[in-house]
C-alpha cells in the first residue's frame, strides 16, 4: 500500500514465532532424506541434490531467493551426507554408539545449514533457531540410531543379513530428525508443548504403522522385532496366558499392543480422511453440487456399514488374523464416525467469516482452511481422541472375526475352553479401556 502513514515501528508488537513457517521445508527435507535412503548410496552428490531441492522449496515459498543461501544449502547437504554415509560405512568394522553419534553429526550439519538460511530470512528471529535446528536434527538422528544399536539392528545390517533394514533405518532417521527438528525450529517458547505432542504422536503413529505391516514396502515389517524384545521383558507376568502352540508366540502384551496400534492407525488415517470429506459434505464449504453429493453419500454409506462387516471383509481380503485387516476396518470405522461428528459441527459454524473470505476473493479451499477450519479445530482434536477411544473398544470386538489384536487372543483362548485365561484377558481389556478413556476425557477437557 502506498501513500500510507509511515509505520510507527515503536507501537508494532513483535511477531510471535510459529512452527508452521518451518513445517513445509522440514517435511520435504525428511521425505528427501528417506528417498535418499531407499535409493541406496547416499553421498556428497546426493547431499548436494537434497540441498538444492530444499533451496528450491525455500525459493518456491519465497523464503529466500539468494544465491548465497543456495550455496550454503548445497554445501551443507553435501558435507552432511558425506558424514552420514561415512558413519554407516563404519558398519563393516563394528558398530558402536559412536557410529550413531557420527551419523547424527552429519544430519546436524545439514540442520545447521537449513537453520541458518531460515534465520537469515526470518526477521525477528534470534540466532537460537539455527542451533536448535542443528541440535534437533542431529538429536533426532542420534536417538533413532541409538535405538537401532540397542536393538542390534546395526549388527544385522553389518552382517549383510537385512538390506531392507538399512532403508528402514534411513527412513526412521529422516522422519524422527525431521519431526524433532520441526518441533524445535518453532516458536520454541510459546508452542513447545503442543509441537512436541504433535511430533510425538507422529512418531508413535509411524512406529505403529510399521508394526502392523501397514506399508507399501515390506521393509517395515522387520521392525516387529521390537515386540519380540518386549516379549522378553514381560514373561513372568504373562507366561500363564501364552499360547504355546502358536507360532510366533502371541501373548497378552503383544495382543494388547496390536490392538492399540490398530486403533491408532485407524484413528489417524480415518480422521485425516474425514476432515476434507466433512467440509465437502457441508453446503457452505462444498466446492459444488456434484462434490457435495458425492462426499455426503460416501459418508452416509460408510456410516451405515457396521465395523464388523469391514473387519470380515478385510480379513478375507488381507488374511485372517492379520492386524492390517483390523487397521483397514478401523480406518473405515473412524472415517464414518469422524465424518458424522465433524459434519454436524461444520454445519453449525459461523458463516460470516466464510462470506468475508469469499468477498476478499479467496478460493473455496482457502476459505475452508482460513475461515472454516479454525472454527472447528478444537472440536476436531477432541473428536479425534474420542474416535481413538472408540477404536480401542471396537478393535477388541473385530479381533473375534479375524482382524487381529487382543480380540483374536480372546477368541483363541475361548476355543481352547481356557476360561480362566479368558477371564484374565477380559480384565486386561477392561483396565486398558478405562485407562485410555480417562486419559482421553482428561485431555479433551483441557482442550475445549
Amino acid at each position, binding site marked *: 500500500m502506498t501513500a500510507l502513514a509511515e509505520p510507527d515501528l515503536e507501537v*508494532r508488537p513483535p511477531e510471535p514465532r510459529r512452527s508452521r513457517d518451518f513445517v513445509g521445508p522440514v517435511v520435504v527435507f525428511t521425505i528427501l532424506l528417506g528417498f535418499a535412503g531407499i535409493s541406496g548410496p547416499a553421498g556428497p552428490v546426493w547431499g548436494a541434490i537434497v540441498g538444492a531441492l530444499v533451496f528450491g522449496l525455500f525459493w518456491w515459498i519465497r523464503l529466500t531467493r539468494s544465491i548465497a543461501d543456495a550455496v550454503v544449502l548445497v554445501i551443507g547437504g553435501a558435507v552432511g551426507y558425506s558424514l552420514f554415509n561415512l558413519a554407516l560405512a563404519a558398519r563393516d568394522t563394528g558398530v558402536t554408539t559412536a557410529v550413531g553419534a557420527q551419523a547424527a553429526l552429519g544430519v546436524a550439519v545439514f540442520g545447521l545449514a537449513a537453520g541458518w538460511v531460515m534465520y537469515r530470512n526470518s526477521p525477528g528471529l534470534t540466532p537460537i533457531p539455527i542451533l536448535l535446528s542443528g541440535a534437533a536434527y542431529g538429536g533426532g538422528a542420534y536417538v533413532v540410531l541409538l535405538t537401532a544399536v540397542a536393538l542390534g539392528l546395526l549388527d544385522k545390517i553389518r552382517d549383510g543379513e537385512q538390506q531392507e533394514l538399512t532403508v528402514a533405518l534411513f527412513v526412521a532417521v529422516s522422519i524422527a530428525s525431521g519431526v524433532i527438528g520441526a518441533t524445535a525450529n518453532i516458536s520454541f517458547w510459546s508452542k513447545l508443548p503442543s509441537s512436541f505432542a504433535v511430533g510425538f504422536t507422529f512418531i508413535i503413529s509411524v512406529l505403529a504403522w510399521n508394526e502392523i505391516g501397514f506399508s507399501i514396502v515390506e521393509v517395515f515389517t522387520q521392525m516387529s522385532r521390537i515386540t519380540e524384545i518386549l516379549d522378553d521383558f514381560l514373561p513372568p507376568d504373562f507366561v500363564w496366558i501364552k499360547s504355546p502352540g502358536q507360532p510366533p508366540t502371541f501373548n497378552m502384551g503383544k495382543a494388547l499392543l496390536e490392538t492399540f496400534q490398530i486403533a491408532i492407525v485407524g484413528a489417524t488415517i480415518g480422521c485425516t480422511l474425514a476432515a476434507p470429506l466433512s467440509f465437502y459434505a457441508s453446503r457452505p464449504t462444498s466446492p459444488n453440487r456434484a462434490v457435495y453429493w458425492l462426499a455426503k453419500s460416501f459418508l452416509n454409506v460408510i456410516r451405515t456399514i457396521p465395523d464388523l462387516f469391514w473387519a470380515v471383509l478385510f480379513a478375507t481380503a488381507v488374511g485372517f488374523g492379520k492386524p492390517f485387516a483390523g487397521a483397514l476396518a478401523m480406518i473405515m470405522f473412524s472415517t464414518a464416525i469422524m465424518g458424522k461428528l465433524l459434519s454436524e459441527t461444520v454445519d453449525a459454524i459461523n458463516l460470516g*467469516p466464510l462470506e*468475508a473470505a469469499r*468477498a*476478499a476473493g479467496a478460493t473455496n479451499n482457502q476459505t475452508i482452511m482460513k475461515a472454516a477450519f479454525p472454527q472447528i479445530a478444537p472440536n476436531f482434536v477432541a473428536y479425534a481422541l474420542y474416535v481413538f477411544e472408540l477404536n480401542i473398544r471396537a478393535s477388541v470386538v473385530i479381533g473375534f472375526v479375524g482382524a487381529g489384536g487382543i480380540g483374536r487372543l480372546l477368541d483363541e483362548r475361548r476355543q481352547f475352553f481356557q476360561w480362566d485365561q479368558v477371564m484374565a484377558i477380559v480384565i486386561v481389556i477392561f483396565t486398558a479401556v478405562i485407562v485410555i478413556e480417562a486419559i482421553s476425557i482428561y485431555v479433551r477437557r483441557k482442550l475445549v
Partner: protein
Amino acid sequence: MSRIVFTNASVTYPGGLVALKEVDLTIEEGEFVVVVGLSGAGKSTLLRSVNGLVPVTGSVRVGDREVVGASNREIREIRSDVGMIFQTFNLVNRSTVMSNVLMGRLSKVSRWRSMLGVWPAHDKEIALQSLERVGIVEKTYIRASDLSGGQQQRVGIARALAQEPKIILADEPVASLDPVTSHIVMRDLKRINRDLGITTIINLHFLDLARQYGERLIGLRDGEVAFDGSISNVDDDIFRDIYGRAITPDDLVGEAAL
C-alpha cells in the same frame, strides 16, 4: 478505473423474491456514497451485486470487468479489488487479528502458501500498515474475540484495506456499535476514502449519520432507486418519501460527533 455502472441490474433470489429491480446507477471513482432505505428495501442486495455475492442479471460493470456471467476466476479477480465490511464484522474469533487481516491477502498470494500460513513479508507488512491505518496495530497478535466491538470492526476495515482495494463496500458497518464508536468508525471510513481515493459505498440505517458523513445519497425502496442526489439537497420530506413513513427517533443514532 474503479467506476461502477449498473445497467438494468436485477436480483431475483431463489424462491422468486425480486430484491433489486432494473436498477440503473453510475458510481464514479472516489465517490463516497451512502445508501439508505427501510429494512428489506434491498440495500445489502445492491452492495452484494457489486462483488457477485448475489445472483444478478442485467449488467454490473466494475471498472472494466463485468460481474454478470463472470466465471469463478473472473469473479475472484473482481472481488480481489473490492473490500467488504460487515455489520457483524465476520471475523474468525479464534484466530488472531493478524490472520484475520491477512484474509484480505488471500487472493494475492500463492494458494498453497496462504493455506500453509507461510505469508510473504510483503503481505505481512501490508497487513500491519492496514492495522496502523485504523489505529489498532498494538492488537496485532491478539485473538479477535478478545477485542471490543469497535475494535473488531476496525479489524474488519483493516482486512478490507489489506486487499489494497479500489472499492470498499460497507454493509451497515456501525449498526452493532454504540453511538460514540459509530462516529469513530464512520470517520475512519471517510478518512480512508479521502486519503486513498477508494470508492466507498456504505449502507446506513441511521439518517443523521447519513447526513453527517454522506456526500451522495441513494435511497432504495422495494428494490428500486427512490432517490439519488447530493446529500445537501435531502430534507425530511425526501426521507419520508424513501421510507414511506415519518422519521422516528429510532432512525437516528444521536450523539453528534465529538
